[in-house]
């Protein structure tokens, strides 16, 4: 049987959006292979209704496993057990930190092939072929699996969420044992929010700042420009500067932050790493200001300005104000 097992991340009573996308994609691919899409949830007393709700995205069956949440290795144990019980030819993960860790650990456990950062998957001759952009997205490589089980780890937002109206999925409890090393990590604090709670997802205009701002105070330039746009403009940030404590986590774009698609995304001092790109590439208009002409962001910006943001941003703020005032 060519069934597909899909990892579903959940937190605080809801399934992660990228996992819903992975379940939708898994259901589509399983149908082409003539198999079924099954999902797996792991946690402490996972509500069965939550598990069953994945039927709406195409999962036929959902396995529920009891174990510590938010860590990868217990899921490697649980998924390896489910796959060992039989019937699965592929394991599929949506984008996100845990999916990468679990998928890689599972590949090692099973001696399975793994492709990560996958942006598209297709069925061909009863097999799945994964497409993976490489070399800074300048080429796409296609990957097949020689192993009995193939592991596909999606890029953030690569898989579209689709409700199928399939009704509730069948829920089944999975019993498995934690391996010794899976008990050696303990979650002490999960999901801590750092910095002010700001809303960037509803903004039409986002002025985003990165390491190129030089210091925390550099965000003042972004805030002034956002204020000049007025109304529905806000300031966003890259992971590097959020981790450095320059700006609140709630304003972070990308892999472990928000995904946005405003009318205008103006990136100041942002190099454009893949982890950032995946969170903002659907923006309607992308403007980048960076002093490094080799910055990858110029590859996917609609208007690129090579220059010193400390000189450009204040003058741009004045000009936007003047234009708005006229």
């Amino acid at each position, binding site marked *: 049987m060519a069934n597909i097992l899909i990892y579903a991340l959940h937190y605080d009573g809801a399934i992660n959006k990228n996992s819903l996308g992975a379940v939708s994609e898994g259901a589509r691919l399983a149908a082409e292979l003539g198999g079924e899409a099954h999902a797996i949830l792991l946690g402490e007393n996972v509500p069965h209704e939550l598990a069953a709700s994945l039927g709406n995205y195409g999962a036929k069956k959902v396995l529920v496993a009891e174990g510590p949440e938010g860590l990868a290795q217990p899921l490697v144990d649980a998924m390896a057990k489910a796959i060992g019980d039989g019937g699965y030819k592929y394991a599929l993960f949506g984008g996100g930190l845990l999916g990468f860790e679990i998928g890689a650990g599972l590949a090692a456990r099973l001696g399975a092939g793994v492709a990560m950062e996958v942006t598209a998957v297709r069925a061909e001759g009863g097999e799945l072929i994964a497409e993976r952009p490489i070399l800074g997205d300048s080429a796409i490589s296609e990957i097949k699996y020689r192993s009995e089980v193939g592991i596909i780890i999606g890029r953030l937002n690569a898989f579209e969420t689709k409700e199928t109206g399939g009704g509730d999925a069948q829920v089944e409890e999975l019993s498995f044992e934690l391996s010794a090393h899976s008990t050696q990590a303990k979650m002490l604090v999960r999901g801590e929010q750092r910095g002010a709670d700001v809303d960037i997802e509803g903004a039409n205009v986002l002025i985003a700042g990165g390491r190129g701002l030089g210091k925390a105070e550099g965000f003042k330039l972004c805030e002034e420009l956002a204020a000049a746009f007025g109304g529905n403009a806000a300031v966003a940030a890259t992971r590097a500067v959020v981790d450095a404590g320059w700006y609140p986590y709630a304003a972070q774009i990308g892999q472990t932050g928000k995904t946005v698609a405003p009318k205008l995304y103006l990136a100041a001092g942002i190099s454009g790493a893949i982890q950032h790109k995946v969170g903002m590439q659907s923006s309607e208009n992308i403007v980048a200001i960076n002093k490094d002409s080799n910055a990858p962001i110029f590859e996917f910006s609609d208007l690129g300005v090579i220059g*010193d943001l400390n000189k450009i941003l204040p003058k741009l703020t004045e000009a936007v104000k003047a234009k708005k005032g006229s």
Partner: protein
Amino acid sequence: MKICVLVKEVPDAAVEKKLNPSTGRMDRSGEKNLNPYDTHAIEAAMQIREGGVAPVEEIVAVTMGPESAVRALHKAVSLGADRSVHLCDDALAGSDVAATGYALAQTLTRESPDLVLLGQQSDDGECYTIGAVVAEHLGMPSLTQVIKMDVESGALRCERQAEYGYDTVQVSLPAVISVGDAINEPRYPSLKAIMGAKKKQLDTVAAADVEIDAAKVGGDHSAAQWVAAKAPPAKAAGEIIEDEDTGETVEKIISWLDERKLL
């Protein structure tokens, strides 16, 4: 405590990266350097040593790669590693991430470290996953993208950003930890350290020396098989302005925004 740091030689950032069209593997010719992300892992090891909470007997840099990879090891030693191990064998060429992780784990087993550190990603392969593969083979707990790490008796208190905010996780040693680039600001090596790097012990080992099963490594045995490469969907190239006269630049930006009714 003994710390092993996994390092990798990558094409220099200034070199244009391309594929060998017949194999689908990366063309790794041209100028090479130590993967910049790895310097954060070496620095993290140095800070544990200097922090003094747990005495660090040895910091060992470990790499897998062709002969040229010794330069990455020299760099790692100049940044603070005491000695280095080079896994070098033609049979390993073309290994995928799973096979590479297995081979590195075999090499690490011989060293029996208390802590394995590595950078969050390589500058060329962008896989982010080698740490999790190595940990599984070693049977050690593991965490990736750690941005703060404190040594507590027999364990590490690690912080990282995950899907829903910042997580704090206690990981018992021995463990495999990949560090994010926000964890520290790597120091520059001293001239003396650079000059002395080549004199430090460097062990070169072949696959058989660390009991690597030849049927599990190399391009022909890797479970993920490259079948084709293609160009991504063409995207119209964006307009580029080089700022020479800022007044003029700003005017151009404003009219660009205005044309698109973004003001």
